[in-house]
């Protein structure tokens, strides 16, 4: 009996030192979140420096709507993400049964702007502002490092949030189990009383994380939309692009979780492709889209005509002075020669 008790305590001790819960769970998750941040920043740095990586997304929305009717919509969206010096650009070409609509939000050293087009050619201006303040238009994605980061680092995100953001939420309990492979992260909300105030937030979930790449592989999370909980199942497939692991495909299933029944709303398959294309800096300017440049803004232009005229004036002026000097010198020389003779 005594041996059994001793064996129990020894086993319990070894189990406890293996368990991350008793080994500073908060620190483990924080260090993991930092690790993910570093990986995301590495992707951002390479993207910024290369300025040649573009992202295409196609989505296939199909399934059943609220009344059980079959729904099938295919949309193709391409995002051009560029961060070069002070230039940033987010372009979205949305194709569906209504046609194609293009929206561009961008900024350059002089200004930030939002434009859109119903036919990808005739753009109209929606907003323009100082490049630092870039107008915040709810209809468009703001061309900032933060918004671009959220598109680049999708394979490190949980339901639209980075782990670091979830850690900062005091209403969540996060538990990371690193004793299993892949790692398992459990998310639980402490307070579920008022769902209306939780709009857009994650309230619970369980996600599997690749212990080597630190990517979010798959999982199930519950978010809130207009006071109702929605369950999302997702499955990520990533591929190595040089030094980077980038999300290649995401399968997403969304369910409305009412009290008793589970109604499938849609089934999204999103594919992210990364193209390497060299484009000109002109894309960050309004003139590229057939719109005028703001008054007082001038980009690199060929030498203005007045400079050539000024140069011509100088050359002919000098020629006139030179000819006049030579003429006087010749006449002086001839007078000297005449007087000498």
């Amino acid at each position, binding site marked *: 009996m005594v041996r059994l008790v001793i064996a129990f305590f020894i086993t319990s001790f070894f189990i406890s030192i293996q368990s991350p819960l008793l080994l500073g769970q908060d620190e483990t998750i924080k260090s993991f979140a930092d690790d993910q941040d570093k990986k995301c920043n590495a992707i951002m740095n390479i993207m910024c420096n290369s300025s040649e990586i573009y992202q295409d997304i196609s989505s296939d929305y199909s399934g059943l709507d609220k009344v059980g009717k079959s729904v099938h919509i295919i949309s193709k969206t391409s995002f051009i993400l560029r961060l070069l010096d002070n230039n940033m650009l987010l372009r979205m070409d949305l194709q569906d049964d209504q046609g194609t609509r293009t929206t561009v939000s961008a900024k350059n050293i002089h200004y930030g702007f939002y434009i859109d087009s119903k036919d990808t050619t*005739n753009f*109209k201006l929606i*907003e*323009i502002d100082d490049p630092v303040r870039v107008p915040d238009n709810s209809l468009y994605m703001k061309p900032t490092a933060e918004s671009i980061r959220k598109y680049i680092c999708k394979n490190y995100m949980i339901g639209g949030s980075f782990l670091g953001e979830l850690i900062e939420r005091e209403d969540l309990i996060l538990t990371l189990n690193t004793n299993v492979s892949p790692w398992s992260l459990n998310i639980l909300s402490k307070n579920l009383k008022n769902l209306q105030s939780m709009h857009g937030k994650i309230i619970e979930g369980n996600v599997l994380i690749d212990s080597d790449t630190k990517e979010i592989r798959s999982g199930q999370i519950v978010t809130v939309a207009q006071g109702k909980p929605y369950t999302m199942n997702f499955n990520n497939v990533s591929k190595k692009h040089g030094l980077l692991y980038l999300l290649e495909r995401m399968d997403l299933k969304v369910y409305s979780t009412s009290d008793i029944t589970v109604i499938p709303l849609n089934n999204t398959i999103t594919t992210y492709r990364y193209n390497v294309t060299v484009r000109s800096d002109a894309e960050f300017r309004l003139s590229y889209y057939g719109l*005028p440049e703001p*008054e007082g803004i001038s980009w690199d232009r060929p030498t203005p005509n007045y400079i050539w005229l000024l140069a*011509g004036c100088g050359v*002919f002026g000098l020629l*006139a002075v030179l000819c006049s000097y030579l*003429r006087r010198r010749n006449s002086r020389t001839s007078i000297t020669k005449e007087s000498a003779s």
Partner: protein
Amino acid sequence: MRFISLLAALFAVILFATLIVLFIQPSELLLSKLSISDTTQDLGDVSTEGITEVNFTVINSSNRSLRIVGANMQCLGKICQKPKVDAIVVIPAHSEVHHVRLISFGAPGPFDLPMSIFVEDVTGLRTIELRITGVGIAPAKPPQQ
């Protein structure tokens, strides 16, 4: 030699004169040619029922066609506004067009709504700030029998 000297001096003078003309001409062009007659409009009492149309007259006083290349749309509190025409509008030389904004009210009360219109002037892209003020009045309820 004298002839060459005179010719060079003549060319220099001609070029200098051309330069002066070129400098004078753009300074005249660099003045804005697009204007809006009433950038601020007080609508007074407006019914909050339905959509209210507000008319601005954009005048092109230049010798060439200019364009309205965009206009912002926004909601401020419970009042929203957007341009009626959702496309680029060309204003022919020496003419005017009406720029109409559609206003919808979510609640009665005084309002002060700033908005922007983006125009291609001879000087380049210009933002003209517009403003609409007034008081939204809820429609009278039918008397109860």
